């Protein structure tokens, strides 16, 4: 759970759509999502599947939704482990997850399927593209670079953070994004137009829209990969839609669906618990806007210490 990743929004959506559901967070003590809208929080090291499975199994967790790209890949590689412990996941195979997580693989796959996507390459100092273009570094964000010097500095930063920077050409147009769930050979999707994007590429202001042409593109692309589970696909539109990237989890704005009438995290929970989703129609309200802003997670120091010393806090037992 991280304030940048969608865990907070997913937990909030589930609280609204499945009020009887107990939510357990796995993460680190300094992550805001460990303190908000969850019933228990447990500290685990990144990608420590064994620890997650052990705690989840002991606490009666029956389903898990990973909310960070790298977690999705780790979970996909351990699908059988979760299954052995009776913990449900809706997730693609790891080689399919990599098509989304590795932006070069996304470009290669899109090109092979004649899906329009701006040229995307591994960054090198010799790259002599027309400026501006974009540098991407995994969970570090998306950076619009205006000079070669800026590109070099940002690439160095990304490399120091353990990333292998990707460069993507700029395309002028209007940005759109689609969040969805692929399961059982079908796709349910929620679309937004991005109205304001932060410097790091995060959507901070958007509005729900519906375009059946875009839905068709999404369904074709996502189902052709063989995707299962939550996703986000981002586009830029001039006269046509051009794919920018795919993410292997819900986006941070996913909770706008609660107000629009399509609560995808809650729907995913119903799927994971093998219930027929109560949503009878995938039609949702357009014109619902959202603005993301920094929130403050308030708690007691003993809860933070409790997480660090004991490894977890059960909020409900402490009447939080």
């Amino acid at each position, binding site marked *: 759970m991280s304030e940048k990743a969608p865990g907070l929004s997913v937990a909030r959506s589930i609280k609204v759509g499945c009020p009887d559901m107990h939510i357990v967070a796995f993460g680190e003590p300094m992550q805001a999502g460990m303190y908000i809208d969850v019933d228990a929080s447990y500290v685990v090291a990144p990608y420590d599947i064994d620890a997650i499975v052990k705690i989840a199994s002991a606490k009666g967790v029956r389903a898990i939704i990973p909310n960070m790209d790298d977690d999705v890949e780790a979970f996909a590689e351990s699908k059988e482990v979760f299954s052995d412990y009776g913990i449900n996941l809706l997730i693609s195979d790891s080689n399919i997850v990599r098509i989304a997580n590795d932006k070069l693989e996304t470009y290669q796959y899109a090109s092979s399927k004649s899906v329009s996507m701006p040229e995307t390459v591994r960054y090198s100092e010799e790259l002599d593209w027309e400026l501006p273009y974009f540098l991407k570094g995994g969970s570090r964000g998306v950076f619009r670079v205006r000079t070669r010097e800026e590109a070099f500095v940002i690439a160095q930063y990304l490399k120091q953070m353990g990333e292998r920077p990707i460069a993507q050409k700029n395309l002028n147009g*209007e940005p759109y994004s689609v969040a969805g769930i692929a399961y059982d050979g079908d796709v349910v999707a929620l679309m937004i*137009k991005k109205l304001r994007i932060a410097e790091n590429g995060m959507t901070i202001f958007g509005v729900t*829209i*519906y*375009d059946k042409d875009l839905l068709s593109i999404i369904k074709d692309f996502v189902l052709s990969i063989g995707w299962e589970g939550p996703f986000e696909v981002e586009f830029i539109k001039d006269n046509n839609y051009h794919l920018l990237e795919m993410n292997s989890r819900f986006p941070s704005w996913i909770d706008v669906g609660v107000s629009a009438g399509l609560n995808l995290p809650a729907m995913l929970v119903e799927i994971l618990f093998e219930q027929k989703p109560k949503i009878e129609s995938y039609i949702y309200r*357009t*014109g619902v806007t959202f603005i993301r802003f920094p929130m403050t997670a308030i708690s007691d120091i003993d809860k933070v210490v409790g997480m660090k010393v004991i490894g977890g806090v059960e909020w409900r037992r402490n009447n939080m």
Partner: protein
Amino acid sequence: MNLNRINYKRIGERGYIFDTKTGYIYLLSETSSIIVEGMLNNNLEGAINRILSEYDIDEDTLRKDVRELCNSLEEICGK
């Protein structure tokens, strides 16, 4: 013309159109707002007559403006 794709709302003296497909917003003048309301209520002639009675505008100019507005809406709804 299929107007289902747009949402129209009046705020005070003016209205706006939200294109539910593209997310674009079009702010309308007072008279354009009356025209769009007339179209949505299947009473375009009533809207034209109201404008002619309340505003200082000749009919030929108004009808030309109405045609242009209709063309614009067709362009939006047809995209």
